[in-house]
């Protein structure tokens, strides 16, 4: 029979999260309200309350599972879990930490590739113009994902309703925006 051993080690995920977010993970007592209220509990591969429990156990195997999960990318940061948590554990902030770590360690769940690529296209778009431009963002995202025909049917009506701007508005001081991107990326250990 498989024997479970609790391994305590100094660099466990729980401690990393606690250091980065100042949230005390051990305060979770598994009431499950986060999962009950989560709009995406039916689509997640690990439930929000399970993620907290897995961190408390401090097992490298579980920690890897969290970082490779789809759940951390599906989280919408709608904060329903946080607003109902009796211990006020801000899971949305923990999810942000996981996403960035998962990306840095090359552990992004294959099913989350489109979500990641959309976010990356979005940031590239802002870095270039300082503001989001729907057409530029969509073209970049389509090229990254090869979802070439997706949403094409919305484009003409969006255009005729005046909802698409052909030429991006650029922020005047675009050099400053680019500098902020460079500086934060080098501080964040290259995640983008």
């Amino acid at each position, binding site marked *: 029979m498989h024997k479970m051993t609790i391994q305590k080690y100094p660099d466990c995920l729980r401690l990393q999260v606690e250091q980065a977010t100042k949230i005390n993970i051990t305060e979770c007592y598994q009431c499950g309200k986060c999962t009950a209220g989560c709009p995406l509990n039916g689509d997640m591969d690990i439930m929000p309350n399970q993620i907290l429990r897995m961190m408390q156990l401090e097992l490298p195997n579980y920690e890897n599972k969290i970082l490779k999960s789809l759940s951390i990318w*599906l989280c*919408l*940061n709608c904060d329903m879990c946080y*607003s109902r948590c009796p211990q006020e554990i801000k899971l949305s902030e923990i999810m942000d930490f996981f996403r960035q770590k998962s990306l840095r360690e090359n552990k992004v769940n294959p099913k989350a590739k489109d979500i990641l690529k959309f*976010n990356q296209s979005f940031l590239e778009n802002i870095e270039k113009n300082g503001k989001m431009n*729907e057409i530029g963002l969509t073209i970049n995202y389509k090229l990254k994902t090869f979802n070439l025909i997706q949403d094409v049917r919305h484009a003409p009506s969006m255009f005729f309703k005046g909802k698409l701007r052909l030429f991006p508005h650029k*922020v005047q001081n675009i050099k400053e925006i680019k500098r902020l991107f460079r500086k934060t990326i080098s501080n964040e250990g290259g995640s983008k």
Partner: protein
Amino acid sequence: MKIGYYPGCSLESSSKEYSKSLLAVAEKCGIIPEEIKGWSCCGASAAHNLNHDLAIVLPARTLAIAEEQGFTEILVPCAACYRRLAAAQYEVTTNEETHKKVESYLELKFSGKIKILSVIEFLQKYISPVADQYIVNNLNQKIACYYGCLLARPKETSTLKRTEDPLEMESVLEKTGAKLINWAFKTECCGASLSVSSTAIVAKLSGKIIENAVASGAESIVVACPMCHMNLDMRRPEIKKQIKKDLDIPVLFITQVLGLSMGIPADKLGLNNHFVSTKKVISSIVKKEA
């Protein structure tokens, strides 16, 4: 009194009608918000998903330049932008270390204490007190006020008194004569930023919201967020496929409803820019008896 205006990227393109109707209503009441010069994107979901520092620094930059331009309060109608700006403000004003870090990124000094007004706060503070003298129409409509997640949560940035069943939008619309219904999905999430990358999920979440509004007797849904609007309005074909029901309930911005009640013409409120027809709402207007 000088109110700074931060339209955000969506209000310059996909949700132009939100900006148009907001400014029209404000103008009617004698208020002209002044656009903050040189504002940039708040970073939206993409930044906080992928780069923690950038997610604070981008909105903080706008707070800092607004302060530099002499504004004491700024109007941020987009619920997503509001959430990012308010979150950056919370970080900067409650954590001295973060404040110093952000100032060093931006290479300037700022207090970060500028008053950020969500659209609901703006309407409560500046429009509701004077609305009586401008409202000329009654809206013969049953309306479901939909707040979405960003205006209701988290508690650090939300100004709503009741997290699960807020009533602020209802109080703003009270004088329009509309019947404001009770329903269960006021603060559920529409799927927001997954609109493009996981459309099926958005269709499912937004579908539930539309179904519940209709089942509760609503004839139209009123929103205060461009992402909620896009998901409930433009995504209707995907929603119909998901819920296997052909529901044509229109989705309006709160400022468009106020505009109609103030007698502002539908085209000036951008009511013809929607995907789901808004004709039923427009034709429900009855002139108020003097």
